[in-house]
């Protein structure tokens, strides 16, 4: 690590804000100068900046580097500083980029074409199905998926990407030494094993505090070429991601939902304001982002449906139905219908949702 990067790392470790860093950077073209320049007081800087520079100069940087790198090695973390080659350009053009990214996994993913997929932590069955489909399609088209590793949509995005051997990035709101939520620790490990990436702007040991989740969202949106919102409540964290996306002038894609569903209130309101973001198919996203689709390999192991099964599919054609409804319409025994439906579910023809409801896929 060169001196310049080391200084940025030190700034990062001492929680220097980007605006102060910008001031320093504008004063000293060569960052290494601040270690050597004689009269710092004449440099025409804020008092607080002079203070921090003084503190930096009193620090033994070799010692600091050794200490930090030992810590990074312990958790197998690779710090990517603002000046590092691996630091993605697209992150530099937002208003408040992180000075240091702490990463675990394949850092080259940061600069690849990617799509952020976000949404509620408590998706409906509709949201689950849609999220699964979009994630798989977009990932198959070669995009890296980005999510926040929270419950719900975030988890589905990571899982489904892994399922089809795609690459995914998880942006965390706390240090990489412990994963939040802890239930997703296993998933985080899987992401790394499958050549994905965990990334955060917080040093190891930093607890995931509430406000950081919102701040984290700016990185989620900035890393993607665009952001896809699957389901979001009226005042949810997802809405902040939507705002960041627009602020950073990235593409925003919003999937419409049932107007009676609370989990779609936020998304529907967004579409109401900006009809242009209305998204119903992954191909539209790929078209807008100008991604050439590599011929997607059909994985559909769809089995030939038998007579009863095709009747069931016919019934489910006009919307989801409960088990009892299908049972009444077909007039067959519950045991027979159970058998048919589970077989169809296994072969990806239908999906069972909450409350014994069945959806056609």
């Amino acid at each position, binding site marked *: 690590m060169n001196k310049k990067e080391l200084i940025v790392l030190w700034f990062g470790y001492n929680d220097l804000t980007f605006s102060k860093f910008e001031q320093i950077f504008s004063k000293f073209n060569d960052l290494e100068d601040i270690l050597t320049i004689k009269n710092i007081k004449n440099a025409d800087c804020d008092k607080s900046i002079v203070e921090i520079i003084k503190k930096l100069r009193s620090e033994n940087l070799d010692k600091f580097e050794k200490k930090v790198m030992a810590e990074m090695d312990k958790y197998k973390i690779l710090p990517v500083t603002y000046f590092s080659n691996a630091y993605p350009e697209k992150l530099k053009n937002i208003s408040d980029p992180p000075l240091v990214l702490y990463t675990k996994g394949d850092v080259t993913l940061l600069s690849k074409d990617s799509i952020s997929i976000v949404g509620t932590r*408590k998706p409906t069955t509709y949201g689950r199905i849609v999220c699964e489909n979009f994630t798989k399609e977009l990932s198959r088209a070669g995009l890296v998926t980005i999510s926040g590793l929270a419950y719900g949509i975030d988890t589905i995005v990571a899982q489904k990407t892994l399922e089809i051997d795609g690459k995914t990035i998880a942006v965390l709101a706390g240090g990489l030494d412990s994963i939040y939520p802890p239930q997703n620790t296993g998933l985080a490990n899987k992401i790394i094993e499958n050549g994905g990436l965990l990334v955060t702007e917080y040093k190891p040991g930093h607890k995931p505090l509430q406000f950081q989740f919102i701040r984290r969202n700016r990185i989620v949106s900035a890393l993607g070429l665009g952001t896809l919102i699957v389901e979001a409540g009226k005042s949810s964290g997802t809405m902040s991601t939507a705002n960041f996306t627009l602020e950073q002038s990235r593409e925003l894609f919003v999937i419409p939902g049932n107007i009676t569903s609370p989990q779609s209130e936020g998304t529907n309101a967004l579409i109401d304001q900006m009809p242009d973001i209305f998204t119903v198919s992954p191909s539209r996203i790929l078209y807008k982002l100008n991604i050439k689709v590599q011929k997607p390999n059909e994985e559909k192991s769809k089995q030939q449906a038998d007579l009863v099964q095709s009747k069931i599919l016919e019934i489910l054609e006009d919307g989801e139905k*409960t088990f*009892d409804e299908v049972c009444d319409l077909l007039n067959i025994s*519950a*045991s027979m219908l159970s058998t048919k439906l589970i*077989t169809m579910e*296994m072969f990806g023809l239908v999906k069972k949702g*909450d*409350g014994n409801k069945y959806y056609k896929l």
Partner: protein
Amino acid sequence: MFSKISSFGLSGLKGFRVDVEADTSLGLPKYEIVGLPDASVKESKERVRSAIKNSGFKFPTNHITINLAPASIKKVGPNFDLPIAISILQSSNQITGKKCQDFIIIGELGLDGNIKAVNGILPTLISARGDGYTKFIIPEPNKNEASFIEGIEVYALSSLMEVVGLLNGSIEFKCVEKSIWKGEPSDKISEDFARVKGQRVAKRAIEIAVSGGHNILMVGPPGAGKTMIAKCIPSIMPDLTFEEALEITKIHSIAGELDLKKGVVSTRPFRSPHHTASVVSLTGGGKDAKPGEVSLASNGVLFLDELPEYSRSNLETLRQPLEDGVITISRASGSYEYPANFMLVASMNPCPCGYYGSSVHECTCSPSQIQNYLKRLSGPLLDRIDLKIDVEQVDFLELSSNTLEESSEEIKKRVDKARAIQIERFKNTGIHTNSKMTSKMISEFCKLDSESEELIKFAFEKFNISARGYNRILKVARTIADLDGAENISSNHIAEAIAYRNIDKFSL
């Protein structure tokens, strides 16, 4: 003078012979009971004195020593009042003749000399018969209970005077007539499935569960009808066999829960302890190691409503009985084993507010709250539950419709048929139902054809089923095949068994 009367005490379900010895000798008037009596036996001193006096006999004013042998086992309960009184009367020559030696005498005395009912007559008499005793004097209120035991001569008497009359030969008594056991339909008080509208999945799953004795968990929002469905279960449970009835009666007799008028439990028990129940009340225990709810539910249903509300320690204690079908209670006074061969029926909401995943109400819980709620059920416990199903609210149209639902009687016919097949299959193996199959039996009775093999392999990968889950699916499939009357498990049976696994709710 010295006298000896035989009686019987109980330790768990096993009886043991107690010799009640009385010795009256000259000396200062004194009256002492020795031989490890507990408080209730010590109190019998006063009851016996008054009962003798008020029955018109004379209480000796000598030095009286009562010994309950063997002195090494603790004696509990008022069962020994009557033998103590008889031994005192004999030692003071108010009973003549040797007839006393023929009988095992059991009974509690009132101050007026009347004999009161005692607990545990059935297991006591069965144990005593096993040890070769055939003549008994027991309290009159217990006679119905005793009437079901073959090969013994029982006199059920109501007062101390009558007992003395019988022993002196001055009054003639007839011994208790034998009753013939007949199964009783168990749906008298319970709800009928004909009144449960819709809920086809739940009904079918319950039918399978009852047929094969599988444990079942129903997950659904409040008001969906989980409790209603559970209450219908007694109406489709297969009839008791005499052996099962005796087994149940024994436990209920010890616990003092037996209806003395009937004398035998003729319906399968349906126990639903509240979630505030203590561990001891569930498992059994306490001072005299009484059987708990898990034993009282043996051969029947243990219904736990709102499963996550039970304390963790309560739920974890269920693991051994769920696995072994017995519960061992170890106390300072000894170790007791009671049967705990119940079928677990449990219900729960999907989250603290109850509406997670509901299409009618919005759930107000945070994801971590839901996680924590579901986490109250440990993996090992869930592993022992064969069927996990969703129960969803039925909409108004369906509720108010007049469609005829299948009645419990029709369902019960199918259940009985499936049970009969199982009883035939497991003859001489000590188990009655598919749910209790060991892994060896599974490989013997659950052979799969190649198509089923393929299907289960596919499901394995698709749904991440555990090894334990594999066996569970096979057991349930076996029951489904039995309901179908099929000799071999087909791929359809396997598919249906997989359908009742409800894996989604427990992996958010």
